[in-house]
């Protein structure tokens, strides 16, 4: 099952190496991993998407991550109501005849065109991974030249109290 782990860590050199090491050593496959600073510049947030076999495995992973000296807090976001977003840049081959068509195809995805040249355009999309997958499917027929995805980042929703 797919799980999203959100880890707040001290912003030290090598912290990503440490965290990914914990996963590889225990034979977890990382689907995506993204890192960035938080509101506190000394703290980074690492969002990891992994596939695990069981809750037991997940619990072990969280414990091993929490054990790392640099780790402030680790949560399994997928266990709670959360938001997750990914950003993708997709370079698609275009001709003067199909450009309009592509623009109308991507519109429902709330994607935007951020670069245009004679033979191609670059489309930017942010959203859930499924949404990006769906757009990629739509664009395949036009010929995707290059694709860059950031991997997931996310936050827990505020609880209503």
């Amino acid at each position, binding site marked *: 099952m797919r799980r999203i782990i959100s880890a707040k860590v001290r912003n030290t*050199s090598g912290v990503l190496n440490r965290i990914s090491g914990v996963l590889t050593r225990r034979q977890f496959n990382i689907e995506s991993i993204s890192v960035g600073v938080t509101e506190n510049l000394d703290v980074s947030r690492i969002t990891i998407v992994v596939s695990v076999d069981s809750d*037991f495995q997940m619990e072990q992973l969280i414990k091993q991550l929490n054990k790392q000296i640099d780790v402030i807090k680790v949560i399994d976001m997928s266990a709670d109501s959360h938001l997750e977003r990914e950003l993708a840049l997709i370079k698609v081959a275009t001709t003067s005849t199909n450009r309009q068509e592509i623009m109308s195809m991507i519109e429902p995805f709330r994607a935007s065109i951020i670069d245009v040249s004679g033979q191609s355009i670059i489309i930017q999309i942010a959203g859930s991974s499924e949404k990006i997958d769906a757009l990629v499917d739509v664009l395949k027929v036009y010929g995707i030249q290059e694709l860059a995805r950031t991997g997931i980042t996310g936050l827990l929703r505020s609880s209503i109290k």
Partner: protein
Amino acid sequence: MNKKGTELFIDSLLDEDVEMIFGYPGGAVLPLYDSLYDKKIPHILTRHEQGAVHAAEGYAKASGKPGVVLVTSGPGATNVITGIADAMSDSVPLIVFTGQVASSGIGKDAFQEADILGLTIPITKYNYQVRKVEDLPKVIKEAFHIATTGRKGPVVIDLPKDITLDETPVKKIAEVHIPSYQPNYMPHPNQIKKVVTAINQASKPVFLIGAGIHHSDGTTEFRELLENSKIPVVSTLLGLGIVPTDNDLFLGMGGMHGSYAANQALMEADLLINIGSRFDDRLASCPESLAKDKTIIHVDIDPAEIGKIIPTDIPIVGDAKEVIRLLNKETFNTENYADWRDTVKNYQTEAPFTYEETVEEIKPQRAIELIGKITNGEAIVATDVGQHQMWAAQFYPFKHQNQLITSGGLGTMGYGIPAGVGAQLAKPDKQVVIIVGDGGFQMTNQELAILEQYHLAPKVILINNHSLGMVRQWQESFFNERRSESVFDNQPDFQKMAEAYHLKSVRLDNAETLEEELIQAFKEKEPMVIEINCSPTEHVLPMVPPGKPNNEMIGVVKR
């Protein structure tokens, strides 16, 4: 006032009350060695970096204080990797300073450069590379804090050469505060209540005790708890010494080469109270069967250990000593399990550790039993890894905290001699007995060179069975007796090796005169290599075959 990195290094170590450093010099640490020349802190020059790190481990285990290691960059640093992994596995507090090439050369494949930071991430509790000289005092202070608190372990500090030469104004260092590292010492009171209830409802409770009690210095408290609760107790290899071997409630070591009584008790118990051990596979080769039909209490300072191997009914995160102290305030219905005490005691009388005596050849078990008798169970025993290690665990009558110095989790051959030397340096007035096999002896015997230099007088017991005994045993038991590369047809003359190190030595071949000769040898005030020519065919028994439940032991001899 400005100070150089080297001066800050010495100041910081003095601040931490470091008594000695184990190490080996080289290019990248020349400035640091220059600062040691003034002898403010004694330095023990081992003959190999692996020796330095194992000696520091032996020192740490015998003294309860962190061991400090200093080696150079590249090969010097890679040579300590085994010892760091060993310390990680057995939660031994170490501070390992590795030299590094100058900052300008890092990442450029400079002479003697290795990525020690990257190499040691998975085998350290934490590691640092100092990037600015002004960070050095803080890093050292943090490193000692991390190594010696919570679940103890090794910390590496990588020191680029230029940093040690740079100068910086001296500043007062704040107390260590790492918000992301706050080990929990005090157990939750509700959990303690649950333990008391569980014990009072149990009819077949058993304690399983491990190194966590040594690390928390909780031996006295545990003995009191034993007195109060009268619950039979099983130890792991690293837990030996917490309870004196002759204590009525002590069933011996459990696990692969544990006692029949200990393993039966572990299996039959309805309540298992694990304090400070981690259900290692040598203890619990078949965790499912061990956990079956019983309540499991697990006390550990490392939350990640709880539930890792065996699902836990009552988890307690906390320091072993604190937990035991709280339990000592309680009273227990010790009569509830009086019958159980008799049952397990009977198992013990029924099948104690034993071996077949003969005058034809010396049985290694007997040699160790005699050493236990001659030293009255008082010696600090350092072992290497293999058959002799298990026989030491089975036949030496341990009775003190931190008395057994052995490589448990990693099973590092070559550990014994340097670790024993380190233990002797930590406790110069105690009798240290180093028990090694002929395999391990040939891995790190160079450290015997230190004995004369520092006037150390351990007895080195070389159990020579002309083979890599444990490998041979497994080949004989599980690989159709195909003794692949496990028998030494050619061996050095160990007597001459001892002589080369200016050590007295003796070779004992005769089972009939063994006791008398051992007594004589132990009367010597000097260090000595005592080579005992032992049976080359003996197996360590009884044994839980790998993957089998603890009550399916082979080689149990019942009286």
